[in-house]
């Protein structure tokens, strides 16, 4: 239990941390494609009511000098933003009518 990834105030999100604290969009996108919709719905439902508080927690630190657990919390929020589309909009992993298209994010801050 000592190895918690998230700040202790967000212990309720800890069950999602090992799968959704991912540093880059390509990692998050790959996770989105392999996760089922139920899986993402569960993560979304847990994260949504805590998101505002989590953002405030992260804003307690300088953006480029965050403790590791807060950094992971922000990564979790980025994953939340990414799964919000399958959950809220598409009801499937990929956008409706994606067809054979693929777009890779190759740079991010």
């Amino acid at each position: 239990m000592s190895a918690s990834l998230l700040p202790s105030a967000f212990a309720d999100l800890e069950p999602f941390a090992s799968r959704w604290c991912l540093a880059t969009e390509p990692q998050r996108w790959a996770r989105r494609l392999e996760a089922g919709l139920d899986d993402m719905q569960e993560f979304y439902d847990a994260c949504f009511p805590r998101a505002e508080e989590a953002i405030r927690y992260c804003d307690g630190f300088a953006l480029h000098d965050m403790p590791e657990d807060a950094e992971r919390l922000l990564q979790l929020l980025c994953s939340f933003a990414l799964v919000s589309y399958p959950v809220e909009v598409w009801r499937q992993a990929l956008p409706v009518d994606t067809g054979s298209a693929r777009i890779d994010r190759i740079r991010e801050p």
Partner: protein
Amino acid sequence: MTSFPRPAEGTWTAHYPDLGTGPVSFEDSISPQFYEREREAIFRKAWLNVGRIDDLPRNGTWFTKDIVAARTSVLVTRDLDGEVRAFHNVCRHRGNKLVWAGTPAQEACGVAREFACKYHGWRYGLDGGCTYVHQADEFFDIEKDELGLAAVHCEVWAGFIFVNLARTPRQALREYLGPMVGALEDYPFDAMTERYSFRAENNSNWKVFIDAFQEYYHVPPLHTHQLGPSFRDPKATFEAAHYQLDGPHRMVSTSGSHKHLFPEEHLYPSEVLLRSGNMGPWDAPAIDRPLAGVNPGQVKRWGIDNFQIFPNLEILIYERNWYLSYRFWPTSHNTHVFEADLWFTPATNARERLAREYAAVTVKEYALQDAGTLDGTQLGLESRAFTSHPLNDQEILVRHFHKSVADWVAADEGLRAEVGR
């Protein structure tokens, strides 16, 4: 019926009578022969945007850009005096590709004082001059001073780096861009330095994807989901507020969806939570300079400017003070590489970072729908089931683009015939 005033002629298309109103052929998007003509007439003659000054953050930085359609790779450097220069990325000695990463087909970037050819060790400075010839004594009648890299015309406008592969460009860059695009020169692009970049390899002619981004007629049917379920109207139509043409360049302004002003019940929960979405982060950064060149039609409820800069650059400027740029690089008559960059003012805290992240996520979601139409369109056009296609007034930029491509190719071929090459 119309929501926005139209020109006195009654339609945007009639306002530009050279365009005509007849059906348009897309043979230019499926013909391998026409692609060969474009390569020579457009990609070796027009000014091409290969990057931004942000790609060369200090003296000594460099990057390469492969321009398959022009059959070359360009090496762009910022030399020790700060001057931006471009060269064919080819060693003077035996023609080896000079700089690459991993394989010669991969682009590269870095910091250097010199470039060394991997093959025989010849070296070049950031100014393109040859600085070292291995075993120089073995050569016959060579002057090191004359063995520099082949320079490519290079100019920087508003931080956008352009190259022109013609021996002598017919116009300087600013003259080429014309007054409509040129008016953006003092837009605060340089305040927007936080970048998200995307790349895709698409199975369509490059113009087919440009066409998808220069009309909004497709938005209600294809991007139904951009509005929350309670706001959707199956009969929704789209009408842009302003269209403008200038030489081979064109633009459209829309009144956009000002989602930050929408009632919350019409929005997705995450849009409300993260205060961001397809129009960008809702809390626009303050910019203490005029937004030069935007909204040339003085649209009252202005949302987006979409500048289509000939041949393959698109700049989308949003009312929430950020912008997108797209570039479309043909790799054959029916394939191309798509590059997209989102540019924001730097996030100052996690909330702003997340709003930008959600905007970047959103752009990809809907761009996948746009890209999802491409191979279907290419396959359909290649069937030649139809050889001409009706275009409506909201598709005026599509009409103008294909005419500009045809005119550009014809003009170049005419000039070459005149001078006998």
